[in-house]
């Protein structure tokens, strides 16, 4: 496998729901605990980058660590880690949270017509 392809698959594997299966698809003998620990540390380092860049996120975490951890896991799964610096990670997180809080787009409200279902 070419290195570029290896990179692409490894990047996806680290955020996959089942990182062990994703890495073992590339390297069948990869140690499951080692893969899980690596994926965990990638997430943890991202979490620390966010904490350094966002006082708001830090305050949310302090208020309710369990709820924030749940949010962070969803964020990490949904948003590729394209920020290399804390402030940029904070901006990504803010954008994701704003999007999560926004009402569903108008089109989806139109497509879910109770009236038509009654008919």
């Amino acid at each position, binding site marked *: 496998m070419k*290195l570029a392809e290896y990179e*692409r698959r490894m990047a996806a594997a680290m955020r996959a729901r089942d990182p062990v299966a994703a890495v073992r698809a590339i390297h069948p003998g990869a*140690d499951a605990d*080692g893969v899980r620990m*690596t994926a965990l540390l990638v997430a943890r*380092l991202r979490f620390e980058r966010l904490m350094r860049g966002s006082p708001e996120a830090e305050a949310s975490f302090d208020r309710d660590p369990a709820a924030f951890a749940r949010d962070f896991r969803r964020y990490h799964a949904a948003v590729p880690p394209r920020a*290399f610096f804390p402030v940029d990670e904070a901006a990504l997180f803010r954008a994701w949270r704003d999007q999560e809080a926004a009402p569903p787009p108008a089109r989806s409200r139109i497509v879910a017509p109770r009236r038509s279902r009654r008919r």
Partner: protein
Amino acid sequence: MIPVGFTLQPDPQFLDLCGGIIRDADYWEVAPETLWRMRPDGRLEDNGYHKRFCAMTRGRRFFVAHGVGLSLGSGAAVDARRRRAWLARVAEDHATFGFRWYTDHLGASAVDGMAMTLPLPLPMTAEAARVVRRRLTQMQRVVGHVGVENNVAYFVVGDPLDEPRFLMDCVRARGCHLLLDLHNVYTMATNHGFDPAEYLRRLDLTKVIEIHISGGSESDPRWLPTGRVLRLDGHDGAVPELVWRMLEAVAPRCPNLRGVTLERMEGTVEEADVPLLAAEMQRLRATVQRRRRRA
């Protein structure tokens, strides 16, 4: 005399608590990227710590650059622009700090254009070694002496005892060196079940420019479904005795060694830790001096 170094972390508590240890060091190690922030137009500019560390350049001590973010093992074209900007920024810092050498970790910390931060293991292939060598050549255009640090990988693509061969393949060019991190060897040996002495035996120690020592900790058994505990390279605890013994054994066999650095991570130092860290710096200096007498 082989100089002893200490890490400078961009963290006010760390810098305040470790002030005496920092002053006691012969040189300082900085991760260049921890001194930057990104402007909205994508340019990398100084953050507040840049100015603070810059003020320390007036004196007899010197700086070395040890990054984690360049990503030596990334070949993806999608990351090429970022890497160019990164190196251009290191060049600006080099003009300020006059880095004696510049190193980064074996692995890929930016993968497919994404910031993994943790360097992920590379396949130990000829292609991967070529990519690392190319990156080192690019680094050498900025700082003449460059190097690769043996990294900790919690899973390995291949035989962990093949890594010395791979590392030597990566640093075979003139001016390219090995940064030998002994706690990383210890951590890898603990987690992957090999003899650290065997790993060290397979290295060409004439390529070692710098040695790192540090401590770490064990993972929480609740983190993994199997309950297995892994040694972590957290730079957050005391240097293990075995690492000290490895240093005593290896340092005299590194004829081109230019420094030994004690590393500690920000956010891991409380007031109660400072005496231990100070004692570790003293022990490091004594060990390195013994090396000189033996040589």
